[in-house]
């Protein structure tokens, strides 16, 4: 059995699977159920200033269903915790005491002034928690009050607030980043410059899940009106992977611990985030879809895969994919693959032909043989190896992309004769 224990920025947990700051981590009741099920840690739902708690609307979630499958993407317009600060603090204290081996990170969001952050940190430190996560990502409601992504979109603010937190507390500081920016490296560099111990990403993406064509209300609808919410779930994973990789390979932030978030639904997703450098991973939508029991397969599946591959612990494969993420300019223009169709497996749907014919390079011809069987044939001279036919083919291993040894040496755009800027 592989060792799944995790240590990120000094925060330890028996496995790398944490529940992200969200409704599943809003109360002692939920969090204890999660720990009983086997989750390695939680980021407690974001705490705000003392005083009257915020108020939430009804309804709060919208879903993007895809061909009969629910919640490929999920959007929410819920705000930070709507329970009194002292209740949350007391519950965090009780849970941490009862579950000392689990990671307890507390998410925070208060107005952008030093005193507010200093005060909340002093209160939170009393709970015995393992770290804090600065919510600079929430894209709705709080941002309009100058918090959440309104901070996360301004690198200088990130650096300032992170600096205050490091100055006023010894707790490890995780900075949660919003993806609603142009280049994720800038806020990550700011967090790093402010002394952050780690970054967490991605927070949710500005979104409207759909428009009701009877009422013309955006979804989720609050009495016929809607506001943009935060998008998450399996649909956002590719965006998150890319942003994580940018931070992992940026010389300024390389080595900065990352807690990966964004559409992680199963152990494979988690392994991919870890391979791109993440120290822990955070899950929310999958738990909100199926309940906490999904932790069984997250742990068991990752364990079995690591045993299969001979990875004794998470460090054995963490970041292994980072060196393979490069700039486009460094890709080998002489690398060549062409499509190959296994005619015994072909079910004659014709998608490979028509997509290539209509939208690509006219590299798959069609004919019928003497028995009337449709026959699709790769025209090797025309095939550019784009993968489209292989991607649309519904049959496992029917179309494969075969590497061709064209005898040409590695050559990137920098050296290519067509490049007017060539050295």
């Amino acid at each position: 059995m592989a060792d799944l224990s995790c240590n990120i920025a000094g925060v330890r947990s028996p496995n790398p699977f944490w529940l992200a700051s969200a409704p599943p981590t809003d109360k002692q009741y939920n969090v204890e159920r999660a720990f009983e099920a086997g989750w390695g840690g939680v980021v407690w739902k974001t705490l705000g200033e003392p005083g009257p708690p915020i108020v939430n609307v009804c309804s709060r979630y919208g879903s993007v269903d895809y061909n009969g499958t629910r919640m490929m993407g999920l959007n929410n317009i819920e705000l930070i915790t709507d329970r009194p600060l002292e209740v949350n603090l007391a519950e965090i204290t009780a849970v941490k005491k009862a579950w000392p081996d689990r990671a307890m990170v507390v998410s925070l969001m208060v107005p952008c002034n030093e005193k507010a952050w200093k005060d909340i940190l002093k209160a939170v430190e009393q709970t015995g928690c393992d770290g804090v996560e600065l919510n600079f990502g929430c894209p709705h409601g709080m941002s309009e009050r100058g918090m959440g992504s309104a901070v996360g979109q301004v690198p200088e603010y990130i650096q300032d607030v992170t600096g205050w937190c490091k100055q006023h507390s010894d707790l490890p500081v995780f900075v949660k980043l919003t993806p609603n920016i142009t280049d994720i490296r800038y806020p990550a560099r700011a967090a790093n410059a402010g002394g952050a111990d780690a970054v967490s990403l991605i927070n949710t993406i500005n979104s409207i899940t759909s428009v009701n064509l009877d009422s013309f209300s955006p979804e989720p609808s609050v009495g016929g009106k809607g506001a943009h919410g935060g998008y998450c779930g399996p649909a956002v994973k590719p965006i998150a992977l890319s942003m994580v990789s940018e931070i992992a390979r940026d010389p300024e932030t390389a080595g900065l611990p990352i807690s990966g978030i964004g559409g992680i639904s199963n152990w494979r997703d988690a392994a991919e985030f870890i391979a791109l450098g993440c120290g822990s991973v955070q899950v929310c939508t999958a738990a909100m879809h199926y309940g906490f029991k999904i932790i069984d397969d997250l742990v068991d599946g990752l364990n079995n895969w690591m045993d299969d591959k001979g990875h004794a612990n998470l460090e054995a494969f963490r970041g292994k994919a980072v060196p393979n993420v490069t700039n486009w300019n460094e890709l080998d223009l002489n690398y060549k693959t062409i499509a190959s169709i296994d005619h015994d497996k072909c079910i004659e749907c014709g998608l490979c032909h028509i997509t290539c014919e209509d939208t690509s390079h006219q590299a798959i011809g069609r004919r019928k043989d003497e028995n009337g069987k449709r026959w699709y044939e790769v025209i090797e001279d025309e095939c550019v190896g784009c993968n489209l036919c292989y991607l649309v083919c519904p049959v496992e291993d029917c179309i494969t992309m075969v590497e061709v040894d064209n005898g040409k040496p590695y050559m990137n755009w920098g050296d290519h004769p067509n490049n007017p800027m060539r050295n």
Partner: protein
Amino acid sequence: MSRDVKAGRLSPEKIAQNYADLHPLLSGHEAAVESARCLFCFDAPCTEACPTGIDIPGFIRKINSGNVRGAAVTILDSNIMGATCANVCPVEELCEQVCVKNTAEHRPVSIGRLQRYATDHLFEIGGQPFERAEPSGKRVAVVGAGPAGLSCAHRLAMRGHEVVVFEAREKSGGLNEYGLAAYKMTDDRAAREVEFILGIGGIEVRNRKALGVDFSLKELRREYDAVFIGMGHNAVNHLDMDHEDDPGAHNAVDKIAAIRQQDLNDIPVGRRVVVIGGGNTAIDIAVQIKKLGAEFVTMVYRRGFAEMGATDFEQEVAQTNGVLLKTWATPERILVDDEGVTGVRFEYTQNDDRGHLVGTGETFDLPADQVFKAIGQHFDENPLEADDCPDMDRGRILVDENRRTSLDGVWAGGDCVAGADLTVVAVQDGKLAAESIHRYLTDGAAHG
């Protein structure tokens, strides 16, 4: 009239084709699509319907995530014979019958076939996922190497005990090896499963050792710390009429065993065959005989389709294989000539006003070259007669909810105790008994 009975009615190729797997292995793509149909229900009805309580949504989710080995371990943790059960469980009356997708999409998730996908994968990659606890120094005797006995033995071995299994027959596996239709248990599935179960270690099987012949229960109770009896049905029911042992009349279970143990091309079958009975055993023999090339196979049952022990799915298998199912008729006598059986005379039946089955007085004759009796089996306590004999109840060994018998230190399970006669139920009996024996051996508590 000479009876027309011979082997090789069909070409070897045709017979091989007829005996192909009833539920072929899913491809990776099929498993991905089918597993994605599972909703991962909470308090899942399928799990509640499974006699061994397999976490069905849990294992299906693991298949879907690519953790196929993990899926197999989830299955086997509850049901060590999950591989056989995947092929032979009447899923249409258990897990798949209650799948919520029956309501949502009029088609259940194919739980049985997904279970086979997972367990076949584990056997393919090999390895024993279960470990033995520290040796307890205790020894347990198990009578019968069928599903109940092997399930009990495996769980006891896991708990650190040493187990000796006594099996009367040549091979281990019980009905998995001798009693299931060959088109459900292709190749050497049963033997490979036995090998896998014994792979945990700590289990010694002594074949060709029969209770009442080679040893007694008294001896076992003296020499071992506990005893589990999993003898199954050890006798078949009879028609109690003349000529039922004449040439041409057979017990279905004997023929089913022969089909499993011999070359299919060497099995003699009649041109006209009559099967008497309405359970899954009757279906198993009728379909297999038809698949070997019998021209007319008629299965006759004394009541209606709804009362048949055979499930709707099994009835459909028989019908689509060309077996004629004849209901509401009961055998009156076996027709013979000098050379043996020539047919069976049946009397039509009906329910009277009080719902009792009665004959109508009218009869018909079915000519037959072979007649198979599949009218049930029972537990025969003869081997225990001059021995320590536990209390019986309606012909079976009486047990409590932990499968304890009335004798101290003796447990029993499988077909020799009350309950549905299914592999999956026998496995559960063995598992529950093993846990009870374990508590008895470790706590010293008399009521384990």
